[in-house]
């Protein structure tokens, strides 16, 4: 049975959307750009980064657009002073929680977190830096995991599980102490489930996962191949 079409307003504009759409899907179709970091076309959405938060009329709290379904008559605001304030704060928290040092990063100039800071006008962090002590796992033959640059978007976890089907990646710990792990928190190089396909590396928005032998600013991620794979395999939207 074809999906029902409903109507809603996004930033004051009347738009129509399939009833199974999220606000992010509907906004995308209406050419409204909502900032995202953990979302990636072709992977399921988990609402991890909260950058896509929007205001919905009648609901006092902000809702993540990537995991909130549209409904009839819904009135959504995607861009406001309040939203910009929270989005900037989120980016600042991401920078201050770990050791993101852009100038010595393989992804300098190709990093989605860095680009998001530019887009939102973040020019300094209003919260103090934590400078945590975090390890770097270079045990894999071809790739490196640097926890200092991880923003816990879990794109690697989802790409490995949903596209590659290996489920090498997972998340361990809670809150600020959470970290991505391979297998049962074993060195990546010893992982028996990893197929070395490199999908996790290429979907990573920052320089947390990168190919060995790259120097500063050299790691350009090939993002296009992942949604393409999903489309071919499952015919997902």
């Amino acid at each position, binding site marked *: 049975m074809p999906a029902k079409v409903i109507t809603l307003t996004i930033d004051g504009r009347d738009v129509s959307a399939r009833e199974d759409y999220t606000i992010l899907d509907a906004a995308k179709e209406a050419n409204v750009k909502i900032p995202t970091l953990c979302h990636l076309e072709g992977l399921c959405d988990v609402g991890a980064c909260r950058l896509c938060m929007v205001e919905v009329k009648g609901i006092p709290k902000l809702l993540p657009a990537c995991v909130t379904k549209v409904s009839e008559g819904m009135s959504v605001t995607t861009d406001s002073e309040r939203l910009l304030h929270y989005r900037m704060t989120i980016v600042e928290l991401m*920078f201050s929680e770990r*050791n993101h*040092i*852009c*100038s*010595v*990063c393989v992804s*300098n*100039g190709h*990093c989605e977190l*860095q680009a998001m*800071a*530019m887009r939102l006008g973040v*020019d*300094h*962090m209003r919260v*103090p*830096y934590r*400078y*945590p*002590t975090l390890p770097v796992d270079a045990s894999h033959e071809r790739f490196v995991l640097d926890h200092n640059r991880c923003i816990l978007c879990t794109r690697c976890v989802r790409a490995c599980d949903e596209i590659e089907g290996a489920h090498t990646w997972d998340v361990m710990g809670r809150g600020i102490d959470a970290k991505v792990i391979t297998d049962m928190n074993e060195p990546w190089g010893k992982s028996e489930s990893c197929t070395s396909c490199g999908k996790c590396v290429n979907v990573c928005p920052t320089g947390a996962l990168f190919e060995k032998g790259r120097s500063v600013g050299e790691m350009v991620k090939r993002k296009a191949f992942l949604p393409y794979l999903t489309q071919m395999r499952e015919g997902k939207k």
Partner: protein
Amino acid sequence: MSKTRVATVWLDGCSGCHMSFLDLDERLLDIAPLIQLVHSPIADVKEFPENVDVALVEGAVSSDEDEEKILKIRERSKILVALGDCSVTSNVPSMRNQFEPNRMLHAIYGDGVIPLGGGPVPTLLRKSRPIHEFVNVDVYVPGCPPPADLIFDTISNLLAGQKREDAPAPKFG
């Protein structure tokens, strides 16, 4: 018209921001008649002067000397500009923040004589931090280093309030 009293300062950084400043090339000649450079590592003035209109500060606050300097700079300057990633985010100097300073120095320099605890060599603070964690900053110019165009835009802005349209957007790294 009185000239704008400008100071540039080099704390814990690599001087790359000052190099980028010099990359203004012939535009330095446009700025020169409008400003009086009252303090700068390239002018070799020892004491930070009073009544500075604009202070451009490169580098993070990493030692007790840096901390002393930044407090004095703030006190004596009307507009304080954090120039470059080290002063805005602490950048590369912060890479030592996971280690205890004295143990780190011994690990690097071995068992030789390391002048710790005052004297001619400033004592390292436990952590290297951006300047806005010590004093109020008026303008942030991130970048490692910030491009010359961005520095020119910032200075032009402060001197005449005119923003150039072709100036690059500020970016970390």
